[in-house]
Structures are given as structure tokens and as C-alpha cells.
């Protein structure tokens, strides 16, 4: 298998070159246009287009006897567009909703395509093996002339996207504003739709009718996980698409009976899964880490605050039991976290009891101040009564960064002439609320 791989990628075989280039173009354009489709929330229109294209392919062959790609693509485009038109008519004129209209047109046109296809097969009118490639795709069947057509189409698509990027961006984000800026939004929308049609046509032979939709959705959604900028998303999506195309083609070349479409989709899905799990910030792993860090920080704050408040009452040397009672935690948990804080140099053990270090006292004071500032704010702005503020303050204090604290201080100083150097505890007695927080 190794030498097969090497042979494949050495591009010595002209056929391989074509196929590879073709898959690259297909994956790339699908990824490109897929972004716009997904952001427009019209993901499944591409599915309808692809399925509706099948009868066009069959009819084009039946009428012209030719299996040349441009002929078949033309038939596919006409039939696909008719399908989309039918959907608009159904949704616009009857009470049938868009999801049913899409499913309806998709499956009926596909059924018609199957009837035509099987008829051609059974009537034995020349070998039909070219046509059923359109079901699941067979990139290996791409030849040089096909590639020429595809390359032109892809170049056109790319040029259109580059030229009209800002128009498409404006259309999808805020069509009303684009219209108000003087652009004919109907035209731009049609243009975008036309590009999607072209993209589907380019990809049909390699990916097949059934799974074309996936190439318009999956790479785009995968790319979204990695970035917050549209331009980056678009290029990344094209990259994912191309990668899926190349790997898919390669894998299916190893097993000739395996159609390329499904393999490309699986590769693309794997890229998606990888993105959903490991993308920084939006990926599952990153979010889990962030969550854990948050919980850790909260727990640490709770412990520090408990220590500071106990010290305020003049307690020197904190015992496990005192802390446990104050926090409402089991002793084991207190011991664990106290150990952690000790390692971080925030508390130290003195004669078997815990004491805050200078660093610990500073951090603790900050946490306490945040908590109390917020409580004061809530009470003095008459948002909550004094006996209700402890829990909300508890939950919020971890989120208050120094900027917000400063602003809070300003507000309270200005409005209430509060002396922030001497913020006392609002609760005369115990508030009854145990700052237990979440399980760490």
C-alpha cells in the first residue's frame, strides 16, 4: 500500500493528476459557497438542488446521446433550477411550508431521475455506466476534457466570490441595509444562487447527487469553529473541502468499487468532528477547560474570602473545622483545597492551623472587596434588599475584573459618598448563605 500511496502522490500518472486536481477544485468551491449557504441558513437548498439535478442529467443524455460533461451539466443545471423554482412556487402559493416543499421536490425529482436512469440502463441504449456515477460520484471517471470545463467553472466561481465578496457579505448580514445603500438585493441574491448552482454542477460527478449537500455544509460548519472572521472562515472552509476531496479521492482509488462521494463526506465529517472537539475557544475541549478553570477560580475565591472574613473577626489560625462550617463544605474538600492554596503560597500552616500569607491576604481582600462592592451596589441602587444580596453577589464576584471594580467604586463614591476604604460587612449577623459554590 505504501508504494501505491507514493505512486499516487508522485503525480506521475496523468489520470491521477486530473482526478486530484478535479477533487481539489470541487472540494474548494463547495467549501467556498457552502459558507454563504450555511450563514444564510439555507443549508438544505443545496441538497434540493443536487437531487433535482438528476433527471436533467438523464434527459440530457437521452436527448443528445452524449455523455460529455458540459452537456450533462447543462441538463443538471436546468433541472436543478426548475426544482428550486418549484419550491418557491409551492411555498409562495400554498400553505405547504418550506421544509415539506424542499423534501417533496427533492424526492420527486430524484424519483424521476431514477426512473429515467433505470430506463436507460434497461433499454440497453449504449453503456450507461457513465450515468450512474452521478448517484454516488466517481472522481476516477474524470478525464481531461471534464477537467477543462470544471477548471473554467471553478475559476469563474472564484472570481465572482472575490469580486463580489462585500456584496455577498452585506446581503447575508443585513439585506435591508444593503438595499438601503442602493444595491439591488434581488439581483445579488440571484447571483449567489447562481453560484451555488454552478458549484453543485461542478461537484456532481465526483461527489454524486445524494451526498453533494454534505460538501456544502460540513466544511463550512467545521471552519466556523476556528474563527470569528468571515474571510478566514471562507478560506478555511475551502481548505477543508479541498482536503476532503483529495483524501477522499485517494482512499477510493485504493478500493475501486468504493465510490468517491461517501469517502469525501466521511473525511469531511472527520475534519468537522476534530474541529468541534479541538478548536480553541469554541471547541468542546477548550470549553471544558475554560469551565474547569472557572470552577477552580470560584472555589479558590470562596476559600480565600472565608479565611479573610474569619480573620476579620479576629480569629487567628484557622482550623479545618471552622473553615468547613463557614463554607458549608465537607472537611475533605477543605483539606484538599487548602493544600492547593498552600502550594500556591496563599496560605501557610502555622502550628497545625492555617494562616493567610501576605499574598493570600491581598488576593483575599480583593475578592472580599468585590463581593461587598457588589452587595452595596445592589442594595443602594435598590435592586435587592440587604438580606438577599449575599447569594447574587456570591455568584457575580468572580466575574468582576479590576476595570469593573474601579467603575463600581467610582459610582458608589459619587452617588453615596461611600468610603470605600472601610467597606464593612452588610450583614450584621450571618447571612445564612453558605458560599458553597459548585463542586470543584
Amino acid at each position, binding site marked *: 500500500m505504501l508504494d501505491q500511496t507514493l505512486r499516487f502522490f508522485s503525480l506521475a500518472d496523468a489520470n491521477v493528476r486530473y482526478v486530484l486536481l478535479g477533487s481539489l477544485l470541487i472540494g474548494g468551491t463547495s467549501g467556498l459557497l457552502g459558507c454563504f449557504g450555511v450563514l444564510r441558513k439555507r443549508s438544505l437548498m443545496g441538497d434540493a438542488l443536487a437531487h433535482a439535478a438528476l433527471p436533467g442529467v438523464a434527459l440530457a443524455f437521452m436527448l443528445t446521446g452524449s455523455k460529455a460533461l458540459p452537456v450533462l451539466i447543462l441538463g443538471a443545471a436546468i433541472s436543478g433550477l426548475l426544482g428550486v423554482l418549484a419550491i418557491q412556487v409551492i411555498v409562495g402559493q*400554498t400553505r405547504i411550508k418550506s421544509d415539506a416543499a424542499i423534501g417533496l421536490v427533492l424526492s420527486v425529482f430524484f424519483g424521476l431521475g431514477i*426512473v429515467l436512469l433505470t430506463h436507460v440502463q434497461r433499454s440497453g441504449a449504449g453503456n450507461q455506466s457513465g450515468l450512474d456515477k452521478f448517484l454516488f460520484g466517481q472522481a476516477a471517471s474524470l478525464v481531461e476534457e471534464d477537467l477543462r470545463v470544471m477548471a473554467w467553472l471553478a475559476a469563474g466561481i472564484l472570481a465572482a466570490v472575490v469580486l463580489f465578496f462585500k456584496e455577498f457579505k452585506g446581503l447575508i448580514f443585513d439585506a435591508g441595509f444593503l438595499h438601503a445603500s442602493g444595491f439591488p438585493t434581488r439581483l445579488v441574491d440571484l447571483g449567489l444562487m447562481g453560484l451555488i448552482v454552478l458549484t453543485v454542477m461542478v461537484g456532481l460527478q465526483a461527489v454524486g447527487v445524494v451526498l453533494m449537500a454534505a460538501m456544502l455544509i460540513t466544511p463550512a460548519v467545521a471552519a466556523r469553529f476556528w474563527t470569528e472572521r468571515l474571510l478566514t472562515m471562507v478560506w478555511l472552509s475551502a481548505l477543508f473541502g479541498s482536503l476532503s476531496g483529495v483524501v477522499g479521492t485517494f482512499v477510493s482509488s485504493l478500493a475501486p468499487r468504493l465510490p468517491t462521494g461517501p469517502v469525501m463526506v466521511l473525511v469531511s465529517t472527520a475534519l468537522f468532528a476534530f474541529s468541534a472537539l479541538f478548536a480553541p475557544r469554541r471547541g468542546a475541549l477548550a470549553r471544558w477547560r475554560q469551565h474547569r478553570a472557572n470552577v477552580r477560580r470560584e472555589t479558590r475565591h470562596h476559600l480565600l474570602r472565608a479565611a479573610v472574613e474569619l480573620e476579620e473577626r479576629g480569629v487567628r489560625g484557622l482550623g479545618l473545622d471552622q473553615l468547613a462550617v463557614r463554607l458549608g463544605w465537607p472537611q475533605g474538600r477543605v483539606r484538599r483545597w487548602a493544600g492547593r492554596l498552600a502550594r500556591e503560597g496563599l496560605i501557610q500552616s502555622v502550628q497545625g492551623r492555617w494562616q493567610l500569607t501576605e499574598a493570600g491576604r491581598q488576593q483575599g481582600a480583593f475578592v472580599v472587596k468585590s463581593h461587598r462592592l457588589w452587595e452595596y451596589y445592589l442594595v443602594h441602587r435598590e435592586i435587592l434588599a440587604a438580606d438577599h444580596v449575599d447569594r447574587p453577589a456570591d455568584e457575580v464576584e468572580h466575574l468582576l475584573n479590576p476595570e469593573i471594580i474601579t467603575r463600581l467604586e467610582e459610582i458608589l463614591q459619587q452617588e453615596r459618598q461611600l468610603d470605600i476604604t472601610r467597606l464593612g460587612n452588610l450583614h450584621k449577623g450571618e447571612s445564612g448563605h453558605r458560599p458553597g459554590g459548585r463542586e470543584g
Partner: protein
Amino acid sequence: MSDAFWIILTGALAASSCGLLGTFLVLRRMSLLGDALSHAVLPGIALAFFLSGSRAVLPMFLGAALAGLCTTLLVEALHRRWRVQEDASIGIVFTAFFALGVVLISAYAGQVDLDQECVLYGEIAYTPWDLLLWKGASLGPRPVWILGGMLLANLLLVGLCYKELVISSFDPAMAVALGINAAAIHYLLMGAVSLTTVAAFESVGAILVVALMIVPGSAAYLWSDRLPAILGLAVGFGVAAAAGGYYLASRWDSSIAGAMVVVQGGIFGVSLLLAPNQGLLARLVQRGRLSLRMAQDHMLLGLVRRAEARSESHWSRLQVHQAGKVPTWLRGLAFRQLRRQGLVAGGAEGYHLTQAGKGEALRLLRGHRLWETYLNCLGLPEDHVHAGADTVEHFLDDQLRQELSAQVAGAQVDPQGKRIPDPGPPLAQG
């Protein structure tokens, strides 16, 4: 029993099951989820084939149910926890599952009696030979038993849970408030869809199952808005399509399942055109009728205004045609209608308004002038009220006119100083 009979029966049973469930999918706006499920069960079926080494039904059902469950759960997870849009979530999951299924089938194609095309459109033509054998005797084709059982199960489901299905489809919040577990109904329905897909799988394949589910229900929805009628029509259309599809495929050698779908589509197309109220033709006729009525009204109003202004009572045909602002191409038709309805009479020597015609014209005029007065009370500038009243006057029925009159406190004169006609005797509706 001829082959044709068995094949049509199989198709009809499949279509009936699918039509029943599919109607609910359409009404719950879950057509695409149904589409997704029918694709996504493929790897489950494929795995069941390979692991059991046979085409036994039970492993397939299990495999499909499992795959269906995974699909539903994954779509929810993507949508809720990863915040991917709903239709994109569906698209990603079902294409991945389907791709997996096709890959499995292609990889093991030699070992099992299942190929790619069969997956897409089934092998219903082989039904008469796919016999269920028991103790050496043939009990008839296996698919008939499977699909028959499935139909019974679905009928049971719909029959027993009818109320729950209806309420949770139209108002899930209300359903929950009534103590109905909408989530359970949802999963029950999805489960039924998955299993029905499997049952119909060998006969019509994965993709065409979708058509059998969505198309009849949608077509029925164009004819009626009462659920029992829709369900009945959906099943009826399905059976008709099964028979029609068989004959189409035998005339024009092609896939029977595909032909069934094409006939379904044809039934839908005919419904789209011809259904009363919802159909395109009906809408066209409605619009035409409205235009005609407005033309007639304008003509009547024009005549009665001329009568008022110049004390005329007889007019030539040309004058009648030119009365009111009637588009040229409607004039002849409107005039003929007025005569046919007995509102205008006369002959070569001149035409006049009949008693009935006068009454109708005065009612229209009253409505127009009342409306003008009303708009004036609301503060609209005077040079505008005429145009507004011009549009509204056709739509004021007796009740609205009465309310108007009450609102303007029995005014006698409109803002342009013209007299508002009295109500006059109530006309019989007709």
C-alpha cells in the same frame, strides 16, 4: 395471485404506512428530519446484515432503531450544545451516517446480497419470489408480511395516540400543560419513522421512502384542512400511486419504486393545480372573479353618480361602458354580468338601472360615503379620502356598514358635501 398483484400490494402497504406517519411529519414541520432519518438508518441496516449474515428482519430493525436513535441524539447535541444551526446539524449528521452506510455496503458488497442501487430504490420487482417459508409451505411474499405488520403497528400507534399526536403537533406547550409528554410522542414518532423506513427499505429503498412519506400528505393538505380527511386522502393517494407506478414501470421499462414516486409527484402536481381554494387554478379564478365584481361595482357606482349629478336615468351602451373606472377589457363582461343579474335592463333604445340595480348601487354609494366620512373623522386630509374609499367600498358588507354608520353617528353628508343614501331595505344575500 399474479405477480402484479403482490407487487402492487407491497407498494400499497408501504405507501400507506409512510403516508400515515408522513402526514404528521409534514404537519409538525419535520419533513427534513424524516428525510434525514430515512437516510441515516442505512449503516444500522448494513451492520445488521453483516453481523447477522442474513436478511433476517429483527436484526435490521434493531440496527435501524439504534441508528435512528443515534441520529436524533447527535442532531440534538450539535444543535443544543455546540450551537450549530438546526438544518446544518441535520445535514451534517445524516450525510455522514449515509456515507458510512454506503461505504460499508461497497466494502462488503461481495459478501452480502445488497448493492448500492438497491439501497437507493429497492427491489420491489423481486417481491413475488421473496417468499416466507414456514415448515416448507409458502405463506406469501415476505415483504407483504413485514409491511402488513408495519401498517398494523402504525395504525395502532395513530389510533391510540391520536389526541396526543394532534395536540403535540399543533400546540406543544398546551400539550405539556395538559400533562401529555410531548417528548415521548416525538421519540415515538421518530422511532416509528425509522422502523417503517426499514420495513419499506427492501422494497423501495432509502431515498424514495421519503417521497412516500411527504408527498401524499402534502397533496392531501391541499384538498382539506381536517386531519382525518388528510390522513385518509394520504393513504388513498399512496395506494393509487402504487398501482399507477407499477403500470408506468411496466409500460416504460424502469424502476417500479421510482415510477411510484413519479406518479405520487403527478398526483401532487394535479392537486397543486386543481385543488379548490389552495390550487393555482382556483386562485386564478378567484382573482378573476374579484376583478369582475369590482368592475361591476364601479360601473354601478358610475351610473348612479351620473344619475345623481345630471338627473339622468337612461344611457346608451357606450355610456354604460364608460361609467366608472373600468378597464377596457372588462367592460363588456361587466356589462353582460350586470344584465344577467338583473341589475341593469334595457335594449337598443337605452339602458337603465332596475329596482334591484338601484338598490345595490345605493348600498355601494352609502358604503363609500360612510367610509369617507369615517376617514375624515379620523383626521385624514380630504383630498385623499375618495381614493381610499374607492378601494374599500367593495369589501364592506352589511355588518361593517352598520358599524360604520354607528361610528360616524348617523351622518347625512359626506366630506365632499354629497348626501349619504339611507340604508334601504336589506337585500337578500346571493
